[in-house]
């Protein structure tokens, strides 16, 4: 007889028993020990049909293929650029993925991307040894000039973006700033200096209140009060 011992959205700690019996399947973040399914990390319980899963609440960014991330050039070598991904591993941006221009052998690569510059890139591949390849070829991938960078928990990124980008476009409308949210938890903001600071405060507020219900409504009120812009539906 199957027996799930936790409720949906319960917070569980590593080693906590989630379900007993063989009728359920251990999903992401869980493991089976004999007849039991146990939690393999700190997270929110999520029951998906027969599978019991855990939604992570905290942790570093884990690079995945297809993610759009914001990264920073840390080194330049013969074949391309090494970029920091805000995770435990750095990524490689090869010359052919960086630009469609013809680059002469031995050319100065800093004219494309120089040390310390930020860019929006997409992850092409991640190997088992966590070697990462990124590309600049794709819609919306470009170098970031000016603005400011903000670091948030990668697990709060979906909250900051909102349903179909509703949250971030609301902030954009209220502050008239350009905002790019990378899946790796880096957020780039560009606009009027005081508006940039307002965006920072709004995003910090989303991060703190992300677990409370009525988040969109609260942030809307906050932005209307702070920016004086009336936000429609």
């Amino acid at each position, binding site marked *: 007889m199957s027996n799930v011992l936790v409720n*949906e*959205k319960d*917070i569980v*700690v*590593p*080693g*906590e*028993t989630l379900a007993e019996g063989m009728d359920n399947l251990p999903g992401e*973040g869980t*493991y089976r020990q004999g007849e039991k399914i*146990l939690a*393999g*990390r*700190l*997270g*929110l319980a999520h029951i998906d049909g027969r599978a019991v899963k855990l939604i*992570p*609440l*905290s*942790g*570093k960014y*884990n690079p995945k293929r297809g993610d759009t991330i914001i990264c920073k050039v840390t080194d330049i070598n013969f074949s391309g650029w090494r970029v920091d991904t805000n995770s*435990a*591993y*750095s990524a490689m941006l090869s010359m052919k993925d960086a630009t469609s221009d013809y680059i002469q052998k031995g050319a100065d690569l800093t004219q494309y991307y120089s040390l310390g510059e930020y860019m929006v890139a997409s992850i092409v591949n991640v190997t*088992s*040894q*966590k070697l990462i390849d990124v590309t600049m070829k794709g819609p919306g991938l470009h170098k970031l000039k000016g603005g400011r960078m903000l670091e948030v928990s990668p*697990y709060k990124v*979906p*909250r900051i*973006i*909102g*349903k179909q980008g*509703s*949250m971030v476009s609301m902030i954009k409308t209220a502050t008239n700033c350009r905002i790019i949210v990378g899946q790796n938890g880096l957020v780039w903001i560009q606009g009027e200096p005081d508006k940039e600071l307002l965006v920072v405060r709004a995003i910090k507020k989303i991060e703190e209140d*992300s*677990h*409370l*219900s*009525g*988040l*969109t*409504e609260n942030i809307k009120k906050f932005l209307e009060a702070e920016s004086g812009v009336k936000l429609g539906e």
Partner: protein
Amino acid sequence: MVYKKRLDNRGFDEARKIEAKVGVIKKADGSAYFKFGNTWAYAAVYGPRNLFPRFLQDPSKGILRCNYNMMPFSSSEDRVRPGGSRRSKEISRVTAHALLPVLNLDEYPNSVVDVFIELPETEAGSRTAGINAASMALADAGLLMKDLVSSVSVGRVDDKLVVDLDYAEESYPDGPVADIPLAVMPNSGKITLLQMDGLVSKEQLKEVIKMGKKACNQIYEIQKKALKDKYPKHSAGDNNE
């Protein structure tokens, strides 16, 4: 002499007052403090992150580095000389050994998880408090873990077996004393740390382990509560992607 009553009036199987909190250091990836009476341990976890020097990297899994440090003003006696010592090196090592069995670092090849345990105030039982804090901080950092680790020291004072010795008991003058710190994975009951300073009989040691496991289960409940309290009234939210 017979040890009839504990020096601070606790029950023989009663630990000192325990306090625990998670998420106390903002900049760390995971953090927690754990207090046994006047022994305070703060733990901060950083990582998984890039590991240098490169020869330390392990391509098959991530590694765990622990650092145990008593602050200069932490002792009730002389000032502790700052920096590492023979003692702190040993404790760092046994702490890493106590925590490794629950950690799954296979997903993080060539990287490192750093655990820094700082003790601003100590009065016996510091390594066990450090392990408790570190295990909570590791869970808070979102690492893959099979279980938590709970730790307590059990010992013998004269003819009695007692849980969580304080400094006065550790230096009890009127009889033999043994101090046995142990760490347990509460869900499987497996022991990850067992050290001994002093003399006990085989039967006493068996009893010590039994008492330690019981105390660790109580500590586990406190650790669990502290971790869950970091996320108050976690409701579904209205915008799940």
